[in-house]
Every structure is written in C-alpha cells, then in structure tokens.
C-alpha cells in the first residue's frame, strides 16, 4: 500500500463504523484509474468518464462551489475531492455520499486528501441502506449538492438526488424521565435528565417533587395509620395517572423511571397498553426497599445496581430484561469547589463522615474517633459519638461539596442496620463513592465486590476490617499528598467511565431501536461542536477502538481474541 493511500485511509472518518470498515477493506475497483489533468492534478477516470475536469479540476470545482449558498450540505459524489475542498474553502460544512467504496479507495491512492478526509465524513450508498441512516444524514443538512460528474456516472447517486426531498429528517428520541416525589433518587433523576439531553435525546423530566407538599400533608394527618396508608395509596395512584397522561400527550419513545418513581402497577400497565416502552433504573439497595418485586414484570427493562443473585431475584419477579448498572456521578454537579478560609474553618477536618447513624456506622466510626473525626448529619446527637458532631441537619449539595473538599479523609461506610461491623452484603457500590471520586476528594471506603472492576487500586483505597480502616486513616493522615494523588486519579477515572452520560447511554442503546438512537446534531443545540466531534466513528486507530468495535459481535471472533491478548499484555506490563 502506498504511503499516500495509507495516510488517507488512516484519516478517513465516517458516520458509521461498518461503513468505514467497508471502505478500508475494499479492493481497487475495476474500471477506475487515475489520470493527470492538463493542469497537473490527479483525476479519477471511471470506465472512460472523468470524475473531474480533465483540464483544471481545481478551477472547475471552485466555479461549481460558488453556486452553493447553504452553510451545510451533503455532497453526492466525491470524485477527486476538489469540489468538497472548494466548498470547505468557502466555509461550508460538508458530508459526502459516495457511490462505491472502490471510488474512495481509488481517490485515496490518487493524492493527499488527509485534510479533507479527517474532517469530512464519508458514507457509501450501501452504508445508507441501513434503516434510519438516511434520515440521520438528512437531519445533518437539508441541502444535497450534486457533484455532477459523479452523479452522472452513478445511477445510485441519481436515485439519491431524486428522493432526497422526500427523505424524512431523523428526529432525536423522546425520553420522559420520571423521578420520585422525594428522596435520594430525586437528584439522580435530575442528573439522568441532564445526561439524556447531553446525549442528544429530546428529554423531559416529570418532576414529581412538586407533589412533595401534598404527600407530606397526607403523612402528617391525624387519622389512623390504616387510613393514612389508604390515602397515600390513592395519592400515589393519582400521581401515576398524571404521568400516564403526560406520556399519552407527549408520546415519548421511552419512559425512564428512577427508584421510588410514583409509577405503580396500574400506571405501568397503562403505559404498556399505549405501546410506550419503559425502563427502570433501581438505584437503591433491593434488600432495603422491596417494593420493586411488585413492579418488576411491568417494566420492559430493569436496571439494578447489584449484580448476581439480585438480578436472578428480579428475573424471578418477572422482569424479562434485568441488567446490572452501577451508580455514577454528575460532572456538572459533583465538582470540587474553591474553598475560602471561612470554608476551611467551618468544614475542615482530618477525618469526616456525612450521613445517617446506622447501627454499623456508630460502631465502625468509633474506631477513628480519636483521629480528629467530624460527623455531619441528623441523629448523631443521640449516640456515643455525639461529641464529634460538627453540624446536624440535612445538608444541601453546596454544603456537602464543601465538607468533602475540606476533609483530608472522607470515610465512606456502606450502611447496615443489622450488624455492628461492615456490611456483610457488599454487592453494590453507593452513589457517595462515585460522587467523592468525581470531585477528586480522597475517601476510604469499605470493600465492595464490584469496586475492583470500577476503580483500580491506585484510584480507590478500600478496607476489609475496622482495624484496617484505622491503619489506613493513620497512614494517609501522615501522607496527605499521597491521599490527594489517589483522589485525583479517581477523578480522572470517574470522568472517563462513571458519568451519568455513560450510564444513560447504556440504557438508551439497549432500550431504543436503531433508528431512534440519539444522534448528535452538530449544527443544532450543540452547534459549538466541530463536525469531527460529531462523527460517530472511524476505523480503529488505537487498540481500544479496535476492541470496542470487535466486541459488538454476538460471539467472540478470532480477531477479538488476539486484540484481547494485546490488551491484557498492556495491562500486565503496565502494572509491573
């Protein structure tokens, strides 16, 4: 392979992975040759037809480009790339449709087009035949500009030009996010809503917290407990009906509910009857809140933060698709604040814990009481650790961020109300772990089964016993720089792998049909993005890209096996 072709193929970008592969794997086309124009430029010749001017293709392209006034166009035909280069020189954003992969291959061998190919996504007619892709292309730019020689030579491109105006523009998927009336999942719902929006979905949040006042009033009514329960049930049904009405009006492509969302069985049945797909992300401990058993079979997809036998239980409860999806953090929310002297004075500590005084925490935290422990939360005043209570109450996010950032060691002890030691069921990772990590705040967290898969040892420090927790606390109090370094590494990892965007991306990829996958429009709401960023894929340049692409097949092929070998070697040698 010539250096020019290799460089061009390496620079090639495409909107669709398989299309890029098709191009890279294509053989030279019969009947396509490269000649030289009078002005000295390379010209492709296809069965005797020149795909650019045989005299001066550059001048001809500039002249043709002057007729294009739209800010963004889809160009039918590539030729030698001169027309597209002329359009780009005028500031027009371009994507190109090519008749045949062999044409691109020939063009790549003709002259250096690395500048063009690295910023102009190229798709083939064959690649557009997958359902939904033509609409996605149409959504990028309404105007189709024909590269005349290419269109003349190609019946497929002629057909594309003829039907272009009839192509319906792809629309982003509509996602209705439903949060709880109150509770920890409320903020998760808001983060999920933001993430879906960033991913390119048209998203709406059903903010059930507006009903919190009514719920609170019902809870405090001076009637017998049974009556209160009855009224609460009726109220929940009413809120659920409101959600169904909202969905019936807006017609989302997916209703994505978070734990404790007020969607009971009748509401879910109504959504199903209306043909609206549903997904449930249960971001709580299934052992603590067992109501999921009643609704599991009503959701099309069930995501839990616990794997293994919990998923088996969920499937046993009737869920047809149950998957583990760990918690995450929001990079827009869980941000380390800049601390003032007053912040340090109020929130600073050597060791702190913020949260509720579950039985195990009352005992575990006593082991570090003499290390400068500060506690934040309600209920500690009635415990033996009361002298260490800094402030009581329920704190807003701004306060919590300051507590976390001003502390040398944040203790993160998963709650258990039936033991005095560490949680004996370490099958999930709490949101606090990810939030602290995202903020770069150093934490000591009790060992959890899933943690090694989520964070490496140099990104997260864990303990398996109370004695070990104390030893570690002493170690890091003496070495705050080391603690800071670990927290920084955790932040990088959290931003890369543990954002709500990543999690919601999984839910949408699995819940939505292909033609409704979010497609980032480069010239819509996120117009500050370059076309290169909006390109969905290109042929793998790195080992990680190759692995990601190969892992999409239903079963492992030989190529993937060898790629995984290299990845393991990289990991092993890197760990030495």
């Amino acid at each position: 392979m010539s250096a020019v072709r290799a460089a061009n193929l390496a620079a090639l970008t495409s909107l669709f992975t398989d299309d890029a592969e098709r191009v890279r794997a294509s053989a030279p086309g019969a009947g396509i040759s490269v000649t030289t124009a009078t002005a000295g430029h390379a010209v492709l010749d296809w069965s005797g037809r020149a795909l650019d001017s045989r005299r001066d293709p550059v001048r001809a392209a500039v002249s043709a480009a002057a007729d294009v006034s739209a800010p963004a166009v889809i160009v039918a035909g590539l030729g030698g790339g001169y027309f597209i280069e002329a359009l780009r020189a005028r500031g027009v954003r371009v994507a190109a449709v090519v008749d045949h992969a062999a044409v691109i291959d020939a063009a790549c061998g003709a002259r250096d087009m690395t500048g063009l190919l690295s910023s102009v996504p190229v798709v083939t007619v064959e690649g557009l035949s997958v359902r939904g892709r033509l609409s996605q292309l149409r959504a990028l730019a309404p105007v189709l500009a024909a590269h005349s020689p290419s269109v003349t030579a190609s019946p497929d491109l002629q057909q594309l030009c003829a039907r272009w105006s009839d192509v319906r523009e792809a629309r982003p998927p509509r996602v209705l996010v439903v949060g709880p009336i109150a509770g920890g999942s409320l903020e998760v719902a808001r983060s999920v809503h933001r993430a879906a929006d960033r991913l390119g979905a048209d998203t709406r949040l059903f903010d059930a917290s507006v009903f919190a006042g009514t719920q609170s009033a019902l809870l405090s009514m001076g009637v017998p407990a049974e009556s209160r329960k009855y009224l609460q049930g009726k109220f929940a049904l009413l809120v659920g009906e409101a959600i169904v009405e909202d969905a019936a009006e807006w017609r989302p492509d997916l209703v994505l509910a978070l734990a404790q969302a007020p969607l009971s069985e009748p509401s879910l049945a109504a959504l199903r009857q209306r043909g609206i797909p549903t997904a449930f992300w249960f971001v709580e401990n299934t052992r603590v809140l067992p109501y999921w058993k009643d609704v599991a079979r009503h959701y099309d997809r069930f995501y839990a933060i616990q794997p293994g036998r919990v998923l088996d239980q969920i499937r046993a409860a009737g869920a047809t698709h149950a998957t583990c999806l760990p918690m995450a953090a929001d990079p827009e929310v869980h941000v380390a604040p800049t601390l003032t002297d007053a912040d340090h004075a109020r929130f600073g500590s050597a060791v702190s814990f913020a949260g509720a005084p579950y039985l195990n925490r009352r005992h575990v935290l006593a082991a570090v009481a003499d290390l400068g422990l500060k506690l934040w939360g309600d209920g500690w005043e009635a415990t033996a650790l009361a002298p260490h209570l800094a402030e009581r109450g329920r704190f807003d996010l701004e306060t919590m961020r300051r507590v976390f950032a001003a502390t040398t060691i944040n203790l993160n002890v998963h709650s258990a109300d039936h033991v005095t030691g560490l949680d004996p069921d370490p099958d999930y990772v709490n949101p606090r772990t990810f939030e602290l990590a995202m903020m770069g705040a150093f934490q000591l967290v009790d060992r959890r089964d899933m943690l090694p898969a989520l964070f490496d040892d140099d990104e997260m420090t864990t303990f398996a016993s109370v004695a070990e927790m104390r030893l570690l606390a002493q170690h890091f109090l003496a070495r705050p720089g080391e603690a800071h370094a670990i927290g920084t590494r955790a932040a990088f990892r959290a931003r890369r792998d543990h954002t709500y965007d990543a999690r919601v991306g999984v839910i949408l990829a699995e819940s939505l049909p292909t033609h409704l996958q979010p497609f980032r429009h480069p010239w819509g709401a996120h117009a500050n993005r370059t076309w290169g960023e909006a390109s969905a894929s290109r042929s793998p340049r790195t080992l990680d890209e190759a692995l990601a692409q190969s892992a999409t097949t239903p079963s492992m092929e030989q190529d993937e096996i060898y790629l995984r070998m290299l990845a393991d070697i990289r990991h092993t040698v890197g760990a030495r």
Partner: protein
Amino acid sequence: MRRILVVQMCRLGDLLQTTPMLRGLRRLHPGASITLMVLDGFSHTPIPRHLYDDLAVFPLDAAARTISGGAEQWQSGVTLAREFVAGLGAEPFDLVLNLTNGVLANLLCAVIPSRQLRGGVIAPDRTRVVRHPWMAYFWASLLAREFGSVNLVDLFCRVAEVPIDGEGLEIDVPAEADEAAARFVTGAPLIALQLGASDERKRWTPEQFAAMANRLPERAGTIVLVGSQGERPLGERAAAVLSRPIINAMGETSVPELAALIRQCRLLVTNDTGTMHIATAVGTPVLDLSTGPVFVHETGPYAVGSLAVEPISACFPCAAGAVCHHLSCRDDFSPDDIAGLVMYALEGGALPRPPRAKVLQSARAASGRLEFRPIWDPSGGTQEQLRQAFGRLWDASLGHAAPIGAGAGVDGPLDLDAEPYRSALVACAVRADKAATLAGRIRNASPDQAAALSARLAEALEREQLAATLDPVLRPITGYLRTRLESLTDRSVDDVAAAYEREWRGTAYRARALTEILFSRTVSVA
C-alpha cells in the same frame, strides 16, 4: 496420547513447581511429545530437559513493545501473537493443560487447537469457563482462601491425573554452575537469606532480616545474601544493620549458580520467592516467611519437614491484587521469633512460640498431598483443622491417582469441636438433594415446566450462596458448585439438566462427606 501442551506462563517458581507433574506425564504417557509453553522472561529457567520435548516461548516483551511503540503499532503485536500460535502447528494437541491463572493464557487456549483442555479458557460468549474438577477447585478456592488446602504442585498433578510420587521438584544444575558457586563457599556452614520478593507485601524487611541474623549464634553459620541484581539495594539496607560478617552473592549468580550455591547451604530463610523453590529442588531445608498475599498452603516449599511462619493478622492473607498501605502483618513475627526458629530448624530443641504468628511444618497426607500443619498456633482457632478437613474432602470427592513411591503419608486425627458446623452441612446436603431432584425433572418437562424448574434452580443456587454467607464453612462447597455451573458448555436442555443434577448431587455428597470427616468417620469416594 501423542501431543501434550503444558501452558505454564507464570514465573520461575511456578515452573519449578510444575516439574513433578511433567515427570508424572512422562511416566504415564511415555510416547507423547510434551511441549512446555512459557513466557520469554522465564524461558531460561533450568527445567531439566528430560521432562519436556519442545519449549514454546510466548513473546510477551516483544508484543508489549509494539503496544508501547505507538497507536498503530499494536497491529504488529497482533501479528506476533498469531505467528506464535501458528508456530505450534495446525494439528490439535491431544491434551492441553492450562496451569496459568491469567487472561492471556485463557485466550491462547481459545485459539490453540486441542482435543481435550483442562484449565481455564475464554468461551465464545466471552465468559471464562474452567474445565476439570481440580481446576474448578483451584478457581473456587481463590474466593475462599481461608480454607485453601492444596499445594500447587499437588494440584498440577491432580489436574494432569498423574500420581504424586513424593520425589520433589527438579532443577538442572550443570557442573559449571557448581564451579562458579564454589567461590562463595568457605568451608563454614552457610545460611542463605533471600531478602527480595516480587511484591513488597511478600517481603519481610531487610532490616528485620539483618536484626534476625545478628541474633544468631556464631555456630549457626555464615550468612550469605542471595538474590538478583535488582535486589542489591535490599542487601545494602541489610548490610547497614548487620553486625556480623556476611557473604554477599546478590546479583553475582545466574539461576543455575544460585541453585548450586543454595545446595551448599544448611538452611534458606526466605520470603515466598523462586529462590525458595530452587532450595526445595536442590534439597536445602527452608524456613518460609509468609506475609501479604502469600498462602503457604497453596505455594509453600514442596518438601517434607519445611517450616513456615504465618502472621495472625485479621487481614492476612490479602487478595492477590490488593494494595496494602500498612503492611502490618510483617510485624507479627519479630527478628527474635525468626532467629529462634532458625535454631530450631538447625538443632531442634524447644519450639519457639511467637505470640502473633503461627509456625507450620509440612508433612504428607494419606492421599500423598503435602500439607502444612500447625505445630504452634496462638490464634487457637479451628481454622487449621478445618483446612485439613477440606483437603481430605477434595481428595475424596474429586478423585486422584494413588500416590506412589514416597508419596503416601498419614492423616492425623482432627482436633476440633465440629458440632457448630453439623446443622449447616446437614441442611446444605438436604437442599442440594432437592435441587438435584428438580434438575432431574427438567428432562421430562414441557418447555413451560422446564422454565419454571430452571427458575427454582436459580433460586436454589442463590439460597446456597446466602447460606454460605451466614455459614462460612459452606463457602468452599458453594464456590465449587458455582464455578462448575458457570463452566457448563452443554447445549441441549437435557444435557444441561443432567449436568445440573450431577453437580447438585455432588454438592450434597460433599456436604455429607465433610460432616463425616469432621466427625472422623471413613469417607466413601463419590
């Protein structure tokens, strides 16, 4: 059996620990060609040539350089790996023994053609499956290490289905190595100290070694420091504390020369290292200092009478990949403790009794396996007794070739109150029998009934795992069951059901067998 491939892509010590198995394969399959697959970094390990026919050296370092060379150069790394596999030949191996606990080896076994594979392999659905009951034991034991009871050397023999012969490890020590080592031998008795280890968690500090050596009487011998060139800084730290003359051979010997030198020593005091296995192979007694993730019951020096010291810290042993910031288990035995044990090893007499460490000594079990049994245990717990009980359970339930030669030993009576475990084991056996019955019913069931029965079986496994959480004595049995069920590759519903029934019956048997062992009755082989 014409072609056998042994995949041993670990370190020098692991290769030496494979030699009894290779010897057994030679005896059992005298006409077979044995290929030994190793990593390039350890291809010069002096494994006696008569134990194998071909050496396949996987180019790990060369492949790693392609990855680090730039974004696109990884493709040449793929080519290297493909060419390596192609170089093994297109004809399938009659038997592949994957003794390596690692992803790379499991992936290689997925592409190397074979008629029979024992050990781990990555299946097409990208999960790891484990083939052969003894390898399933090994993988399951990693999750219940506190009950681990089978030395790797014996495990390899079990997987290869060759008898344990009690002849120990082998290493090739050519005459020129003896000549080179002679320069360190002064005529005085020598005690070798191995200061280094591959992992800091496995390393007693050089200062502790030196303080221990300072406490030894002169009659014990001359101290010789051994190890690699890279470990010389540790020797310098020790030298700064040592108050007696030493011979510093660190970085001065090749592996064969090290073996020759160790052979001249009356004792090796060592961390868990390749040097320890070299000493065992040349017949030098060993005092093994186990800390961090080291577990003497899995990797202890393979010779009868070897001594080992273990801390009683609650977090010991730690997981293989764990990062430890406090390393406190290293302080559970003091230089005084170890100096006392050195003199005990050399001269006998009263056994030292470290207040925070166990002292163990190896002996043969009746099945031929080498066990490390406590001769001093300040924790006073029943852990060691349970471990021996489990060792006998696995021998009885997974089967093994009868030991030959000096391979057989004696099983002493267990000394523990087993009553707390009875009800958990009895209940486990009852549950397992019920689950086996459920699995048996699937074969004649309609699709809907089969689905319902499968769901109940899934619940049964979940209950068993929950029970193991509440009663840790069940963890090895449940872990083995789970590993076996996860590794099933049967395709038809009937075959899967039969496999499930078999594994659940096996679980019931093991629960009952362990009960019998704990209450000292004869166990019938399953």
